[in-house]
Each structure stands twice: as structure tokens, then as C-alpha cells.
């Protein structure tokens, strides 16, 4: 379970540009829940993910993962239980390393990186199996550098990399936004499959309301650092994309967007 309690986040404290994004923000996410987060630009969606992952500090509050407050835990240690996929497909992998090298790195997450050989031949079949499930033909390109692949292919590899070892939370930061519609669909279906198969708790920020409604067990809509809509279960089932769009338009008009 992930709990955010009384979170306060102020950008540029003490400066004229000071901006309080979260003021006493609370959120609880149950294990195994697939949460979609929507909202206009600047509503705090990505900040929320960054706060959970630890790459921006908070002024006040508690972040509790499985009963443990992780506010003081450094970013890299939090990733022991967190996997993350970014919007920019080049952020989740090493461009000058081959697919095989990238997967070998990811496969070793959580263990010591000592002086044993990095590439484990006995795992290659497993990697190929994972890659072939993408249907992108990447299983034959194990020795190709990641930088030579297209954005969609790289994003697919990033997704596999982030979920190759057991994790509890999968953080998806607009991970289909930079992809063409067909590739986005492929990645989204794959995401859903991985989340369900591995029983992960997922948080997905997206601007695609259809994806949010279709794949999320729970939908959050954010505006100016507040959750203005939180629907799950039957309530979520009865929420159509049009409903979402209507609320979205309403808050956008209020903001003057």
C-alpha cells in the first residue's frame, strides 16, 4: 500500500516565484490497483510521481510504502521497489549499450554489481521470450544498440527493463505520449498485461482520457495540486470518456486555458 500523508510541496521557497503546489495533500493507493491520473498541464501529476520516486524533495509530510516512511530514503534506494517509465523514450535505457546489455543490467537490479560476467547466456532465451511478446521483432536484434532503435521500440524495451525484476510499484509518466497511435496502443496493451500478470500497483499519468478510463481501476483528476475527481469500482465503470472530458473542459475554462 502506498500512502501520501499531509504532503506540502513548495517550489522556489522564499523567492518571488514561490509557488505552493501541494498543501496538505493526501492519497492512499491499495495494492494491485491500476490508477490513472489525468489533469491539465501544471496540475501536479508529474510532481506527484517525482515526489513518490524521490527526485524532488518535499517540505512536509509522509510517504509510506508498505508501512514504512520513505521520505528520507534517497532516490536510488526507493527504486528497489519502484519501476518507472518516462515520457521520453530515451530516458529509460542506455543508447550506447546493446539490447542484451541493457536487459542484463535490468535483470540484475537489486543485486550487487560485482566482477562476475555481466552477460548470462542462460538468460538469453528468457530475454528473447520477453521481447517476442512485443511483436516488434526485437528478439533478433539483441546485439543492436538501443540508440539505433525507434522511439516506440526503445519505449517497449524500457517497459520490459523496468519490470524485469520483481517490483511493487510501476510509475508511468505519460509513457505513451510521444509515440504514434499504433505504437502507443501496443505499449498500452503490453503495460496492462504486465501490470495484471505481475500484480503490480501502477500509477499512470496520461493525457489520453480513453487510456485512463479503459485501463485504470481508478481514475484521479488533478487540478492545481488537488484531486478533484476520484472514482473507482462501479462509480468508475459508469464514468464515460465524455464525462471526463466535460469535467476537464470545465476546470480548463476556469483556469482560462
Amino acid at each position: 500500500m502506498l500512502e501520501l500523508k499531509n504532503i506540502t510541496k513548495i517550489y522556489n521557497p522564499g523567492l518571488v516565484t514561490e509557488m505552493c503546489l501541494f498543501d496538505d495533500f493526501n492519497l492512499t493507493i491499495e495494492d494491485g490497483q491500476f490508477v490513472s491520473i489525468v489533469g491539465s498541464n501544471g496540475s501536479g501529476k508529474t510532481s506527484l510521481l517525482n515526489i513518490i520516486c524521490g527526485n524532488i524533495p518535499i517540505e512536509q509530510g509522509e510517504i509510506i510504502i508498505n508501512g514504512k516512511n520513505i521520505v528520507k530514503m534517497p532516490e536510488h534506494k526507493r527504486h528497489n521497489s519502484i519501476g518507472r517509465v518516462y515520457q521520453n523514450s530515451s530516458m529509460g535505457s542506455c543508447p550506447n549499450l546493446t539490447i542484451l546489455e541493457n536487459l542484463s543490467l535490468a535483470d540484475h537490479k537489486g543485486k550487487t554489481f560485482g566482477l562476475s560476467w555481466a552477460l548470462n547466456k542462460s538468460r538469453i532465451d528468457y530475454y528473447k521470450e520477453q521481447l517476442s511478446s512485443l511483436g516488434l521483432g526485437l528478439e533478433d536484434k539483441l546485439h543492436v544498440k538501443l540508440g539505433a532503435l525507434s522511439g516506440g521500440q526503445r519505449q517497449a524495451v524500457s517497459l520490459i527493463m523496468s519490470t524485469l525484476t520483481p517490483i511493487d510499484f510501476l510509475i508511468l509518466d505519460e509513457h505513451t505520449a510521444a509515440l504514434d497511435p499504433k505504437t502507443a496502443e501496443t505499449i498500452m496493451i503490453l503495460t496492462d498485461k504486465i501490470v495484471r500478470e505481475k500484480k503490480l500497483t501502477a500509477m499512470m499519468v496520461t493525457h489520453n482520457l480513453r487510456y485512463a478510463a479503459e485501463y485504470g481501476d481508478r481514475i484521479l483528476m488533478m487540478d492545481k495540486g488537488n484531486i478533484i475527481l476520484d472514482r473507482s469500482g462501479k462509480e468508475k465503470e459508469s464514468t464515460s470518456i465524455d464525462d471526463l472530458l466535460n469535467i476537464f473542459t470545465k476546470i480548463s475554462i476556469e483556469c482560462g486555458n
Partner: protein
Amino acid sequence: MNIIDLAVNTITQGLIYALLSYAVYITYKILDFPDLTVDGSFPLGAAITAVLLTNNVNPYLTLLVALAFGALAGLVTGFIHVRLNIRALLAGIITMTGLFSINLQIAGSNLIVDRTIDTIFTSGIFNVLFGNIPLIYRKLVITLIIALAFKLILDLYFKTKNGLLLRAVGDNDLVVTMLAKDKGTVKIIGLTIANALVALSGSIVCQEQRSFSSTMGTGQVVFGLATVIMGTTIFKRFGFVKGTTAVLVGSIVYKACIQVALTLGLPANLLKLVTSILFLVILVYGNYQQKTTKVVSKNARA
């Protein structure tokens, strides 16, 4: 000195300095960290060596001591950069500047190692193996063995999990964070390994030329960068050539260029000027080549 001796000597120089080039390859090419510590850790290795040799310490043991102190210098730069959050260039400058005094403190002043004192070229295992070869060729063989041995060790290291993590941190450090590893620690490891190699190079140079001078570090980082960029530019079209091989050849070619300039009558005082101009030429050529390959690949696609 006849032309063959001159050539042998130049290659020997290139081979000794190849260790420094490997180091710059690690910091600049792999870690993407322009490490200026080199200008201080190179004479550090030489200073320690000059003092220890003069005090009749075993020359092989001397190599190890120089290696260890070089590692320490790298550790300091890494610590300043990573834990104290100082920019890469500045962290290197701080350590380099500090080392200048430390080197003088160690050596006292510029030192000459007496002819009667044994070095790795005149004692121990290398002497047993190659003792009957004339000294100038013996130096070539020994430095070749050392340069190739370290190339092999590094190549193997890059294939280990730790080595792969090092390559990953320079390529995209976000990935290392997502692997739940502290990217800072990985960078510190890289800087430590690199500066250990630099000091080792300094130690061998000192054993070869039997002297230490406090200014011998000046321009070494530029030399290292030049060989790395030259080596990797020359071999860019051959994808299968390893980076370490490329900089090894780069180091020899670079020393040869300088030697040719000297032989043609260039005053030694202008050496650093030539070094920096040569470096500039290599950089500009590298840019030019990058542009042309881009155009070619575009045409190929069209």
C-alpha cells in the same frame, strides 16, 4: 640517436602513456567526465616513484604504491564532485592544484634517479626474462607487455557487471538510479580506477627517464584527451575495434607526431604549443568528420 632507435623510443613512450590514455578514455569517453586531476596525479605517481627508488624500495613495489596513491587522488576528485556537489571541471582543478604542492612535498624538489639504482627495466622478473636484450629494446618489450596487459584487464572489466554499470552511468545515469544503485558511487569508482592508471603511467615514465619534475604533469590531460579523440575518430568506421585499442594506437601516433616535429627542428620550448594546436586540429577534424558521416547517412537513406 639513429632513426631506428628514435622510432623504438617513440613507440615506447606511446606505450607508457597509453595507460594515461586508457584513464582518460574511462573518464572522458565512458563517464563523460572531463577529469583534470590527471595533470596532478601523473606527476604524483612520478614523485612517489622517484623518492621510493632513491630510497632503494623495490621498483615493482613502487609501481603498486604509485597506483594506490593515484587511486586516492581519483577518490578525492570523485568525493568533491559527487558528495560535495562541485562541478566536474572544478573538482578536477581543485585536486590538481592541491596535488602540485603535495608532489613537491613528497619529492622535495625536482629529482634525478641515479644511474646505479635499479628500475623495473633493469631488475626482477623483466630482467630475468629479457635481460640479454639491449636496454632500448628491452624497454619496448616491457612497456608493450604492460600496455597490452592493462588493455586486456580493462576489456575484461568492461564485460563484468561492475564494468557494465560504469558504462551505463556515463551513457544514461538515470538508468543506474532506476537499478537502485547510487550513480555517484559508480562515478567515484570510475575516477579511482582512472587516476590509479594515470599515476602508474607517471611511475613508469619516472622509471624510464629516471627523473621527476614538478611540471611534468602540465598538458597531460590534453595529451590524454587528444589521443582518445584521435583514436576513436580514426577507428570510428571500424565498429569492431575496441576503445582501448583505439586509444593505445592513438597514444603511439600522437607521440610520433610530436617526435617528428622535434626531429624537424621544433624548439622544445614550443612543445606544449604544438600539443595544444594538434589537439585543436584533432577536435576540428572530429567535428568535420561527424558532419560528413551525417550527410552520407542521410543520402544513404534517401
